[in-house]
């Protein structure tokens, strides 16, 4: 079987086969269930505060830069964690989730669940805060907004299991 050359640069992965969905529902997905544990939502606020405090302690960093830095690091970190890394770190369901990012694994792919709503609201809230505290400077606004756009688009339900430019494709024979 040779390599398939796909014509478009946006590829929608095919939905899970019957066998895969059986494997997925066999055991609770411990990798993605933590978003519902106690404290999993509050930790985001705490982490953002920590990063903000740490970045403003450094002497030659202005408050605007530290807000921007907080914003960018949170967006980047949450993007890598939710939308880049695929699969589960330990083997408990013989690879049923190997091609799915953490965002797609939450709630087994259901959209607009409480966890997903909260995790979408946090970057938006953080962005609005950071634009306010950087006094609406155009350049920082643009930078923050680009990062926010990337993070928000990745969380859209239309992009569930869609891979752009072949990044992060799951090669399945």
């Amino acid at each position, binding site marked *: 079987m040779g390599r398939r050359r796909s014509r478009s640069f946006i590829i929608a992965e095919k*939905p899970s086969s019957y066998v895969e969905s059986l494997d997925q529902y066999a055991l609770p997905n411990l990798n993605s269930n933590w978003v519902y544990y106690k404290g999993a939502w509050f930790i985001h606020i705490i982490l953002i505060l920590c990063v903000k405090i740490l970045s403003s302690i450094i002497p030659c960093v202005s408050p605007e830069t530290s807000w921007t830095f907080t914003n960018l690091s949170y967006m980047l970190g949450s993007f890598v964690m939710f939308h880049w890394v695929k699969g589960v770190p330990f083997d408990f369901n*013989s690879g049923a989730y190997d091609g799915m990012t953490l965002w797609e694994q939450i709630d*087994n792919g*259901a959209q*607009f669940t409480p966890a997903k709503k909260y995790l979408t609201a946090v970057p*938006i809230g953080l962005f609005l805060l950071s634009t306010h505290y950087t006094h609406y400077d155009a350049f920082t606004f643009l930078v923050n907004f680009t990062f926010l756009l990337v993070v928000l688009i990745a969380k859209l339900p239309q992009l569930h299991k869609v891979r752009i430019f072949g990044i992060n494709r799951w090669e399945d024979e």
Partner: protein
Amino acid sequence: MNTSYPILNDLFVFLNSTITDISIVYSRIPGSGILLKYIKNSHQNDPFRTFLEALLVLFAIIYLLTKRYRTDNNLIELTPSEIEELVEEWQPESLVPTITESQRIELDKTPILNGPQGPRIKLEKAIQILRKYGVGSCGPPGFYGTIDVHTEFERTVSEFLGTDDTILYSQAFSTIGSAIPSFCKRGDIIVADQGCNFAIQKGIQISRSVIKWYKHNDMQDLENILLKIKNEDIESGRRLTRRFIVTEGIFENSGDIAQLPKLKKFKYRLILDESLSIGTLGKRGAGLTDYYNINPKEIDMIVGSMCTALCSSGGFCSGSFEITDHQRISGPAYCYSAALPAMLSACATESIKNLDRNPHLVAKVLSNTSTFKSNMANVKYVTVDGFADSPVFHLRLIKDIKANSIEEKEKLLQEIVDDAMNNGVILTRAKYVFAQEMFGIEPSIRICISASFSKKEIEKAAAITKSAITKVLKNKVR
């Protein structure tokens, strides 16, 4: 504002008053002034940015208010009334099903074997063990089910084959189906022979690995497939996962013998199912490694069964210590099913000791096989599938016989079996699950040659089989 059209006038007055009312109500809400001031403050004469932020807030509100839905709709949802209907319609099947005419005929002809054919030593040992340990085992082998006879058997097999360690399973069919998934997971690559038996196919299926099939016993095809996999690796940059080759010693469905010297040259791990070859091939009867004079420690996993040549029940998997020890936790058929009863395990040990004591038995099997096959050499109407040295072989109808479907072929074979039975030779058709086999299997009569027959009896059996075949099939040629 006064215009010349009274209707428009009324409309404007109405709009004006509504907006004034709304703003009065809005200013009564506590905190609304702060919001208005903030928005005014943040505008900063930049309408584009304010517009973007307003869009963002709108998006957030819409997102937060949308109801959740599922993306996978594989599961059928029934309304409660549909469920009620289905429950009403269901009729339980009778405990004893009605059998068809052909099934009744088959049941009538089932022969009953009287008494053991082996030496009396085994029988006396079996009775002694039965009186000591009772009938069953306590539970799973990992949980109070392992008895000293089990470990004795495992040690005996390891010494007999020449491997490091062995693990004992209670059922031969599920041995290979449990050994393969405990090592092969999703993402690994298994290259398997197309002639593998049903148990191996199921084991490979459960493991969820990527399976590549090579043509039956064709080493050149196997090499091509391995080369193709290597090229695909380089092309797609796939990371290195575990790779296995799965094949059988003596193939159950065809009677061929695997070409072990060529197989072990490849860099893949080799899983060898020697269910039929242990006890029958080789100088000592130790299977394919003995037959080809290969060190058994070079094979990664040898899977054998005790219900063939060893005349007991159950199966085992033999290899290095790591291989067997891993299966004690991760072999499903070891962990989740009851241990082998003590008597069967002791009988299997006794069979192996018997083989050790009487090495002429294996030579007898070989000579009986060649006698039978040479007597069947000129048979028309059927092919004798299988290598010359293999005591297991199949009789299959040639293509010229007038039978198109599997049922017709099976009927003809059953007639041959019945005719041979009437003349004193019990044969049996090989049973396949045709609907679930991966590759097409032809119906056949499977013959296994035993060492307990004398040369005269073998010749007589061959002659009767040949005459039965000729009698049934001579009028059925196209």
